[in-house]
């Protein structure tokens, strides 16, 4: 079959990357100052007996390589350790956070891709006109704004009109479905808008140059010579080809989506992964941080894999 090799290679790469990240994670956090023992033994009149017990509990009395094996074993069983903060399994804490983060990030990202593609296409199409200048400069403007700052500016602008913190109005004790949805949507609007605005600029620029590159290809000239209407050419010939670099670049910018989500969740008190990372940083809750980092890495790797496979589907030229 066409490209079995390509697909296998990408999957193998993703697996190896995850393994590297997992190992990096292990090494990185062994370098952290303080261990589980120093964190958990900060209780009044901590005794050496308590410390030893903790040491044993966290396997810190074993050699580094043994610890690594145990760590891998635990990972395989979905065990990411126990949070210093609430001493609950990290995986459980993260699961809740992820469920909260997903809708906000998804809407924000979709918004940015939609607006970015649209403005990018317009900028390329209107090349050399004031429209292009306006589109590109507003895209650059939003791209240049620090995410957290833009969020704060939106709070200033929308204070009193839209809720500026939290994910739902929890005081609606038993909201109906529509009421709940409305409530959720009103809370999601500002954070998602912030994410969308900070991301879209980059997409506009990417789409614009991908489109411009495509519009310079000879087959566009052929399409014109065939008598196709300009928008038909954009839709059927240019956009499809421009999607190739766009797919890759959007996948690569996933890291920034994650970064943006962290900042935005802090600004808007959104109880998601980003906020969990922030709180873990504040409390130096290393197991949580470790788990969140692993989770983020794996999701970025998987999204990249999906982008690679999508690329494969979009580009018939990939055979090997």
């Amino acid at each position, binding site marked *: 079959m066409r490209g079995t090799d390509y697909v296998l290679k990408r999957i193998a790469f993703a697996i190896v990357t995850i393994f590297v990240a997992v190992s990096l994670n292990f090494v990185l956090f062994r370098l952290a100052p303080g261990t589980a023992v120093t964190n958990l033994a900060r209780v009044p009149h901590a005794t050496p007996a308590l410390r030893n017990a903790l040491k044993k509990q966290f396997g810190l009395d074993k050699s580094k390589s043994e610890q690594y094996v145990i760590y891998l074993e635990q990972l395989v069983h979905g065990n990411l350790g126990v949070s210093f903060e609430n001493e609950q399994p990290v995986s459980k804490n993260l699961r809740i956070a992820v469920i909260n983060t997903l809708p906000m990030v998804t809407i924000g990202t979709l918004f940015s891709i939609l607006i970015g593609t649209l403005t990018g296409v317009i900028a390329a199409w209107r*090349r050399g006109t004031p429209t292009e200048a306006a589109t590109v400069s507003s895209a650059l403007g939003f791209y240049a704004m620090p995410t957290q700052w833009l969020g704060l500016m939106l709070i200033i602008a929308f204070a009193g009109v839209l809720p500026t913190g939290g994910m739902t109005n929890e005081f609606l004790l038993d909201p109906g479905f529509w009421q709940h949805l409305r409530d959720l949507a009103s809370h999601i609007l500002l954070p998602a808008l912030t994410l969308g605005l900070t991301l879209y600029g980059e997409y506009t620029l990417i789409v614009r140059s991908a489109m411009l590159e495509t519009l310079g290809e000879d087959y566009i000239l052929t399409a014109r010579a065939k008598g196709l209407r300009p928008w038909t050419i954009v839709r059927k010939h240019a956009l499809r080809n421009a999607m190739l670099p766009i797919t890759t670049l959007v996948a690569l910018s996933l890291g920034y989506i994650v970064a943006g989500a*962290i900042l935005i969740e802090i600004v808007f008190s959104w109880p998601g992964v980003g906020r969990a990372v922030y709180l873990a940083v*504040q409390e130096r809750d290393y197991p949580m941080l470790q788990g969140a980092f692993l989770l983020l890495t794996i999701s970025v790797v998987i999204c990249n894999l999906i982008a690679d496979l999508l690329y494969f589907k979009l580009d018939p030229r990939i055979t090997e």
Partner: protein
Amino acid sequence: MSEASLLIEAPPEGGQNRRGFVLHTLRHRPAAVIGATILVLVALGAILAQWIAPYPLHQQVGPVFAHPSWHHLLGLDDGGIDMVTLLMWGARVSLVVGFAATLVSMAIGGAVGVLAGYFGGWVDTVLMRITDYFLVLPDVPLMIVVAAIWGPSLFHIIIVIGILLWTSTARVIRAQVKSVRERVYVKRARALGAGHTRIVFTHVLPQVAPLLIANTVLTVAVAIFDETALSFLGLGDPSTTSLGKVIENAFQRAAISAGAWWAIVWPGVLVTLIILGCSLVGGALEDALNPRLRVAHLGARTFRLRPLVGRGQDAL
């Protein structure tokens, strides 16, 4: 008639001299002109902060969050320190972080890119695999983790940002070096028996330099952006005043609720301007360097029709 003597009139064809390319682009593209102007102004303010800042950096000159006034055009911050002064010093630290981190990342990315692109083969495979790994690792979370583990200091931030930003540089440079390496004049030099060092330094690097510069400028923007993010997360160096730190201070002291918008709006605007400046300059250079952007076979504008008087070359 000898052929040669006629050739003096030979027209310049295609191609362009790459010498002075960067300066030329900076002068002839409006976006680059605006960007460069912003950067020069901000850099001047930052460099001259010692001499032209209206007040000493740590001096309390009025009440906390005092309104903008004639003495303090942009108001005071949460420590009663003049915002104009803070912005100058803050820009200085932010630019230092931006450029130093970029230098680190350029050194790594440039070296990896040149080595991988020039030598190809297993060197390329190994280096690019490593780059790919770094590329998919989410930068900011990794920065957070490393900064959290190492502890907050400007030096750590520079190193952390530097060692995580090099991947895109490495890829871009590698691609360019690969294409330069396939240029006939490099092949010719190799056939002549030129050593790797000579080829890299006399043929490859000068050719890649404009792209490296464009990339540097763009990376500075990312580095400054990341610095503000890290500062905002409380991972900044508390003993220095970067723009990110200024924003974070104002945020921590609830400047917005206190009605002191100036303490948070201006540093953000300044960061935006710096990043905008870098993006404009870097983007313009990249655009100018991308030959595939020169032609567009389709656009909103089409060719124009001209009335014609007379015939042939008389018709003008």
